[in-house]
């Protein structure tokens, strides 16, 4: 698993085709100002920007929305996906940095 590699979380530019929808079991949820759908489509009502995210990225943002700790998020990831904890740890760190770059996380 590589949480951070594109197109795990991708800002959609005008005129850019959508990446294939990803499946996820959970329903929609809000993380910061963005509302995420179960198919990985996110819309930020304050900025008008929209994004697509992979199932793993969705799980992480769901955990962040629920104010889970890094340890709890890693537990969730390793129990949900077939990934070594060390790899998940590295990818999570990278993904959180990406969220900050996109303005989706402080």
């Amino acid at each position, binding site marked *: 698993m590589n949480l951070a590699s594109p197109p795990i979380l991708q800002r959609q530019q*005008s*005129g850019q085709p959508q990446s294939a929808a990803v499946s996820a079991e959970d329903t929609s949820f809000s993380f910061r100002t963005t509302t995420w759908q179960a198919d990985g489509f996110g*819309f930020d*009502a*304050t*900025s*008008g*920007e929209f994004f697509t995210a992979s199932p793993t990225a969705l799980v992480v943002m769901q955990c962040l929305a629920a104010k889970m700790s890094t340890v709890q998020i890693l537990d969730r990831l390793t129990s949900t996906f077939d990934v070594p904890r060390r790899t998940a740890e590295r990818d999570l760190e990278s993904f959180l940095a990406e969220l900050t770059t996109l*303005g989706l996380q*402080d």
Partner: protein
Amino acid sequence: MNSSPTIAVTGLHRGENPQPGSAVIRSLRRVYPELRIIGLCYDTLESGLYSEEDAPDAAFTLPYPSAGLEAFWDRLDAIREVERFDVLIPCLDAEMAPLVESPEKLRERGISACLPSWKAFEARDKSKLPDLCERTHCRTPQTVAVNDVSSLHQAAAGFGGSVFVKGRYYEAQLTSTPAARESAYWHMLETWGAPVLVQERIEGEEYNVIGIGDGRGHILGSCAIRKMLRTSNGKGFGGMVVRDPQLDAVAQSLIAELRWNGPFELEFVKPDGPKAEYCLIEINPRFPAWCDFPSTLNCNLPAAAVELALGWQPREPLRHATPGKFFIRHAIDMTGDIRDLAALTTTGQLIRQSEEPRAKGREPQTRSSASHVA
């Protein structure tokens, strides 16, 4: 005043740089299908004159602004001998100044209009935005008004070379080389007159806010969008409704400071980054070409402007458009008839007569062909 008022609208060309008039007409007919609407045009090939859905009931040519104010008022009086319109909704930047400067000329003719005060109109002039923004604690790109090529290059150098060269009323070109800058300067000077504006380039997403001010510092209704699609010269060709309290607060602060009366459009750029602030690019003193989009979302600002101008009780409260709704422009070919063009060209007017009362909801109109009126 007529019991059923007649509304005059300008700016009817929906070309590459669409003018707002046809969108205003479309919005008015959504809620007041019985209104008689006349179009005032500067060119007989303004596309809105030939539309099945947005065309005015009658159209009259106006002299170009270069003909002078006397010619303008004389022509308006001549038009009113044929069509005694009650409300004027000016939709072009260049025609705003003389109307705002002399509102009594409209009043004495019995014409109502939602116009800002001269003081507010001047305060939002492109060259005076820094002063306004300082008073309202709003960010704005550095802008310098120039009257010669030497000052142009000097200002551009101070902003890092890549700058917007803007016309006094309209149009902007992004330039990166001295040659391009100079070419843009002469174009803006010839087209819009002096001064030409040189503006620092700020990269980021563009946001626009359309609304109506009540003249006492309040916004009666508004809608904010992020530009999704832009033409090669930066005009919005698609936009997504957003709802950001920060943007609403900036807009409210500007309109309160100006005590703006009537339609407006605020244009912002927001640089990338979570802490970025909205940066005011300009304030347009009229409806923009996308003004019919909010009307489809229960925020009919042109209808509200007519109600305000006539002193009517608002039909219903203006609602906030739902974030996520978006518009995309779609160019189509329309069929015109040479008889319409001939009538407008030779007599300066084109009168259409509906055979049936207009149905609510913009159903296709049945019209007789144009008739000449001597």
